[in-house]
């Protein structure tokens, strides 16, 4: 069998694998739609935004406060974790001596593996009482943002680290040869060169922030309200599903799937916004 | 001399923008043909068409005919892999694989079906002797190829191509990335290989072209696309150029 036909078969196989990988998200979307249909048909999508409050047992399905909860928690965590993560990767690549860099990198890799339950426990037992001392009740959006930021920091840090490692060393040497300061080199040469890797890191980290369930459930207080301050308890869509799915029946259960569907649509919106912003410039 | 490679009305476009247009050129068997001209006139792009490396460049669309011996190289049904074995290519920047010296040569040989250990070793030794590298590397064949000097790496790349016994050797400015001494060594090597291989060399070093080429083809950029403006015996093109642009370029007053 001539080798160019082997190439043909290779591409055919790879295309099949890619199709499977791509289909999973569609399958999940379909699953969520199917499970949401009963209540969407019965109650109609609009009431999920207009009902007085969220009390499924009394047929009230307003999800907006929780959508705000998810958005604020995610945005806060990403805003905190992205600079810290990227700076920590810069530290690893350009500032730390090799031995410290290796230890620091394995520490970050460990942070990436700590289960969200442990973050939740630590948040519940240590962080929440601390915040409660400052302004009761303690469990709050702030606790959620802090725990989430710590949880997603390794994702952006490791992606940024890999992105910097891929930047050809000639760039850094060239800038250094021109007498440009280390920070100047990082800021004006390395960052643009590693743009695609950094962008990957931000997408993955945002995805993880939206998707987190266990840790958020334990520290945010889970009160269904649109937060007006960092100290207000808040409930995210994921926490809502986890809290009530075990006991939900009938249309209540289907309403929880609607919040899952909204989460998915939120992610699709974020991804297409990211695509529109980069429009290939990033992946050039 | 019979013609080994006939190119008729060849045009190459990158995302619709023409790199060069309507080039008709015959490459004689056994001689060295130099492609000269200012940078950006499409001579390197022309070279990459001959072994269909344009397939790897997104947006590159080729039209026209390239006849190598009996086959039409430009149509898609041709077995590109065996075409590239018959048409070897050397790049401007030496690019050995990140493998040992021996594996750099062994990998392509095994790929093209050579299995017997003895035959492989023989071919490797012969190829390295051809490029004058054997004495320098024979006792450290398992060392990384990246540890060689620029000139040695380029000669290794040539050895790697010669081991596959190509009919034609394409060279894209083989010496321009090397220091003068290594450049001289590579040029002597090319001269030594002349009787056994047909070669097409892209160079902007006119002196080098005059020294080693049998025939010369001059490319020039006219209204946004490369064109072949003159071709002929080296002496004729350098002393009695027909095209005024060639005359200016060859005398060094333009380009």
């Amino acid at each position, binding site marked *: 069998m001539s080798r160019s036909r082997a190439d043909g078969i290779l591409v055919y196989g790879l295309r099949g694998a890619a199709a499977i990988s791509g289909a999973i998200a569609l399958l999940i979307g379909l699953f969520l739609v199917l499970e949401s249909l009963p209540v969407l048909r019965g109650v109609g999508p609009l009431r999920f935004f207009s009902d007085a409050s969220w009390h499924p047992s009394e047929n009230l399905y307003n999800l907006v406060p929780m959508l705000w909860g998810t958005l604020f928690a995610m945005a806060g965590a990403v805003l905190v974790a992205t600079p810290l993560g990227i700076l920590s990767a810069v530290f690893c690549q350009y500032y730390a001596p090799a031995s410290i860099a290796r230890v620091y990198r394995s520490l970050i890799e460990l942070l990436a593996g700590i289960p969200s339950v442990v973050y939740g426990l630590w948040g519940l037992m240590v962080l929440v009482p601390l915040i409660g001392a400052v302004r009761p009740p303690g469990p709050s959006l702030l606790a959620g943002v802090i725990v989430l930021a710590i949880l997603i920091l390794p994702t952006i840090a490791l992606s940024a680290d890999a992105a910097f490692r891929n930047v050809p060393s000639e760039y850094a040497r060239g800038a250094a040869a021109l007498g440009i300061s280390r920070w100047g080199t990082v800021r004006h040469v390395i960052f643009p060169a590693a743009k695609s890797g950094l962008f990957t890191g931000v997408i993955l980290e945002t995805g993880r922030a939206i998707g987190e369930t266990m840790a958020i459930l334990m520290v945010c207080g889970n009160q269904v309200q649109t937060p007006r301050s960092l100290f207000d308890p808040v409930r995210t869509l994921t926490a809502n599903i986890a809290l009530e799915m*075990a006991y939900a029946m009938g249309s209540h259960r289907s309403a929880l799937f609607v919040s899952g569907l909204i989460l998915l649509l939120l992610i699709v919106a974020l991804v297409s916004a990211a695509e529109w912003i980069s429009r290939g410039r990033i992946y050039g | 001399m019979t013609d080994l490679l006939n190119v008729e009305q060849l045009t190459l476009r990158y995302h619709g923008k023409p790199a060069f247009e309507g080039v008709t050129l015959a490459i004689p068997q056994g001689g060295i043909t130099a492609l000269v001209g200012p940078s950006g006139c499409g001579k390197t792009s022309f070279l990459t068409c001959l072994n269909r490396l344009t397939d790897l460049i997104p947006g590159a669309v080729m039209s026209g005919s390239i006849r190598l011996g009996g086959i039409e190289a430009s149509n898609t049904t041709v077995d590109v892999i065996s075409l590239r074995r018959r048409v070897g290519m050397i790049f401007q920047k030496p690019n050995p694989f990140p493998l040992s010296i021996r594996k750099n040569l062994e990998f392509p040989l095994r790929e093209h079906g050579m299995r017997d250990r003895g035959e492989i070793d023989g071919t490797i030794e012969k190829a390295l002797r051809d490029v004058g590298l054997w004495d320098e590397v024979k006792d450290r064949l398992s060392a990384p190829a990246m540890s060689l000097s620029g000139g040695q790496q380029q000669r290794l790349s040539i050895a790697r191509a010669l081991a596959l016994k190509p009919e034609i050797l394409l060279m894209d400015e083989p010496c321009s990335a090397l220091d003068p001494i290594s450049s001289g060594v590579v040029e002597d090597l090319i001269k030594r290989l002349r009787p056994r291989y047909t070669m097409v060399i892209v160079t902007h070093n006119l002196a080098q072209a005059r020294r080693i080429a049998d025939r010369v083809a001059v490319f020039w950029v006219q209204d946004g696309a490369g064109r072949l403006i003159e071709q002929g015996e080296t002496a004729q093109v350098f002393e009695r150029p027909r095209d005024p642009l060639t005359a200016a370029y060859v005398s060094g007053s333009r380009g």
Partner: protein
Amino acid sequence: MTLKDVALLFLLLALGCSPKEAPRKLVLTGSSTVAPLAAEIGKRFESLHPGVRIDVQSGGSGRGVTDSRQGLADVGLVSRALKDDEKDLTPHSVALDGVCVILHKDNPVAALKDEQVVAIFTGKVTNWKDVGGKDAPITVVNKAEGRSTLELFCHYFRLKNTDIKAHVVIGDNQQGIKTVAGNPDSIGYVSIGTAEYEAGHGSAIKLLPCSGVAASIENVKNKTFPLSRPLNLVTKKAPEGLAKEFIDFALSDKVHDIVKEQYFVPITR
């Protein structure tokens, strides 16, 4: 350890231990409160009946009802009495568990009358000084919608879930205890067994009596404590075969030590 070895190991494992003959198997799913108890009873039952496998899955009372009704599970675990629309299932109470109000250990308030509890949970009273405590805002910790303890709490205090103005909503009992222990001005309610264990082992909480009766496993056992719920194993129809054997074993006094170990109250037949 290249990829080949991993694949080989995985294949060996999958083939090597396909089940010899399908062992008699019983699947129980349902309330996360009852699951630990059911699993321990299951282990003892397995040790007494070799070749039998008792698989206990958690996931909440709602799942216990739906899975047993659809036959996905042989026995459902429900941490409350069955509701009117669940009368198609037959309940078997394996233990009792009380629900009590808990405060932070340092909260000076020693007892609360029922109407005071109602006033706090409905947001009419928002400061501890109005109920004899120090001047501090009250943090109300409530259970999530659908939880059995919430339903029992609302049923006893004749409240609707929408009436409760909660600051913090929690899922499982331990989360309730840890939340109250972390906030000196909070008030919540959890299962008595869990609360009694945690109070006794240094958690910063204390149990409040309910309408004069001290909150303790003992008072639930002698039925004087008003707020209690049965922990039920439910089946679609009258159990038979392996399910009957297991349920009879679970209701027998041979498991009373396990029930006590999980801080629930055994039911003396």
